[in-house]
């Protein structure tokens, strides 16, 4: 296997609130390899977006990485100062957010917002920047690019705005793109168009992607591998087809079983009892223990170690630790 482009090792993120410190991410370890699209899936509040913010060094003010290592091309990003960060964001790693209206500046034209990235990161002349920007706009499927270059975000539909955000993320040709629920706010037929665009990017550009979504359908469509997050932990990971066909963690199983579809019509849907615990409600042991139907004695106290089942399929659950007892 090649060397990973990005390696996150044992990362913990803590929030500082008035009443104390709370761990929001714990023991986050994963790698993204060149040309690979990795999905992060889970329900709201499980830490999907926080993981991407930690990687990009854009955590909220009251949150901090307390432990761990984030290596990008074998350099430790966590040791970077703001100046060094600016050379990374947009150029090496870029991010696409869910809501294009808030990601774009309403007062600047589309052309200006896309070409700004080139101004920051390249030595191209003004006319070269414009030329490159218009090419990029055509590449992401924006019609009448010359005309739209001078348009403002409010003049565009939701799908077109998201294409602008994608153009901004791609134009400096980053090696890693983080897409945080990039199609969630879009209508079904527009989502289909944007997902097609992501597939095209994946085939043509060979850049790696981290694709965050709560929607298994989207993950299935775009990603090679997937990380399943629950309450700030990665509880299972593996190839998308493997996880969808043979989920091992009781949370992953429950999550996949509770997706409604026409074949389940007339039947009661599977439900996971309870709800995702808030930061304050989290306890030691397995994070899923309180909602788990297969809970055993040690689940409340012992944190399950990650166990590699086969290939890249790994799970953190006492059901799969050797003879049900952790070794650490």
């Amino acid at each position, binding site marked *: 296997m090649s060397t990973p482009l990005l390696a996150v090792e044992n990362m913990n993120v803590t929030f500082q609130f008035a009443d104390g410190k709370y761990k929001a991410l714990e023991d986050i370890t994963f790698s993204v390899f060149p040309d690979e699209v990795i999905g992060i899936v889970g329900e709201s509040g499980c830490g999907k977006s926080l993981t991407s913010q930690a990687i990009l060094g854009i955590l909220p003010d009251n949150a901090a990485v307390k432990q761990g290592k984030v290596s990008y091309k074998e350099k430790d990003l966590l040791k970077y100062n703001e100046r060094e960060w600016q050379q990374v964001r947009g150029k090496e790693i870029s991010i696409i957010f869910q809501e294009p209206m808030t990601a774009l500046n309403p007062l600047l034209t589309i052309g200006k917002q896309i070409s700004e990235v080139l101004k920051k990161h390249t030595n191209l002349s003004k006319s070269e920047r414009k030329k490159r920007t218009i090419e990029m706009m055509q590449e992401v499927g924006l019609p009448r690019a010359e005309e739209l270059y001078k348009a403002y975000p409010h003049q565009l539909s939701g799908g077109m705005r998201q294409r602008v955000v994608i153009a901004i993320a791609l134009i400096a040709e980053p090696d890693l793109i983080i897409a945080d629920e990039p199609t969630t706010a879009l*209508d079904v037929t527009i989502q289909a168009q944007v997902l097609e665009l992501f597939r095209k990017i994946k085939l043509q550009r060979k850049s790696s992607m981290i694709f965050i979504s709560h929607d298994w359908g989207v993950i299935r*469509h775009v990603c090679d591998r997937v990380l399943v997050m629950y309450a700030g932990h990665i509880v299972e990971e593996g190839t998308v087809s493997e996880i969808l066909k043979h989920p091992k963690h009781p949370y992953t199983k429950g*999550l996949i079983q509770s997706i409604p579809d026409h074949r389940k019509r007339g039947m009661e849907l599977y*439900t*996971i009892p309870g709800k*995702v615990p808030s930061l304050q409600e989290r306890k030691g042991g397995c994070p899923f223990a309180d909602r788990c139907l297969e809970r055993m004695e040690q689940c409340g106290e012992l944190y399950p170690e990650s166990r590699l089942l086969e290939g890249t399929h790994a799970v953190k659950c006492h059901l799969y630790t050797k003879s049900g007892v952790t070794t650490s």
Partner: protein
Amino acid sequence: MKEPIVQVENVFKHYKQSQGNFSGRDAYVKAVNGVTFSLYEGESFGLVGESGSGKSTIGQVMLQLIQPTSGVVKYKGRDVSTFSRKERKAWRKDVQIVFQDPYSSLNPKKTVGWILNEPLQIHKIGDKSYRKQKIMQTLEEVGLDASYLNRYPHELSGGQRQRVAIASAIILNPELIVIDEGVSALDVSVQAQILNLLKSLQRKYHLTYLFISHDLNVVQYFCDRIAVMYLGELMEIGKTEELGTKPKHPYAEALFSSILMHNEAENRIVLEGDLPNPSNPPAGCPFHSRCIHKMDICKTTKPANQYLGGQHQVSCHLYSENQSIQNA
């Protein structure tokens, strides 16, 4: 066949749009453009379409929360606009609505107990002790208990809030509930809980649901019949098993092919372009600007509604009799 509980007949709803232009002509947003269908007792009728297709407007016209520009809504055979004040108040008990966002549909300054007592008080049902008992019973029915009586909406999770919204909808023993994107804001595991709750309430009280949603997985799981809307018009109506597996209308076909969970990428139909502006819909068939089977007639003539056997109806020139004669 059972009796229809609601008949929507040729309903139009056009909103005046203040343009501030100098032409002096008013523009109209054609939110609903001649829609006809019936709801039968005890069924779940799904209304699907993208944002701006007019599905929520239909739900609100049906409950007379907004007045149609023209057209008739009949409840158990009687035109609801001819109801006297007294009849209208009595009818309001029979028809209820659950909105997408329980954060904004529940009064933030009132406790759950107050919220559930209000409808009983308005309709002068029972005495104080009866009401209390009824509130308790309803809370239990939606999976909550007495401890919620004195809580405020902000203290509840999204799923709990939606349970309270459902409780306030069923407390007057209605016959019809409009569920307008009622589970769309919820995470998958919570969504499954609420869908199961709605189904069990339907069985117990023989409720009729108008289920408005953009999520085709949910609609196909939940509904007996489905109607597909595009730009204020119905494109196709049919039983879930017919429409879901073999949609006839090119728009319905593209919509259902975009379900990512089960369709392979190569079978998906990706439509070009955006939804046209509903204040200026295309002439002829509203879908012709994006249709891959577009013919000359589609640009000029609105297709009539065709019955394809049983209750399956489609509005598309591909299926009109004249067309098949011409092709033959």
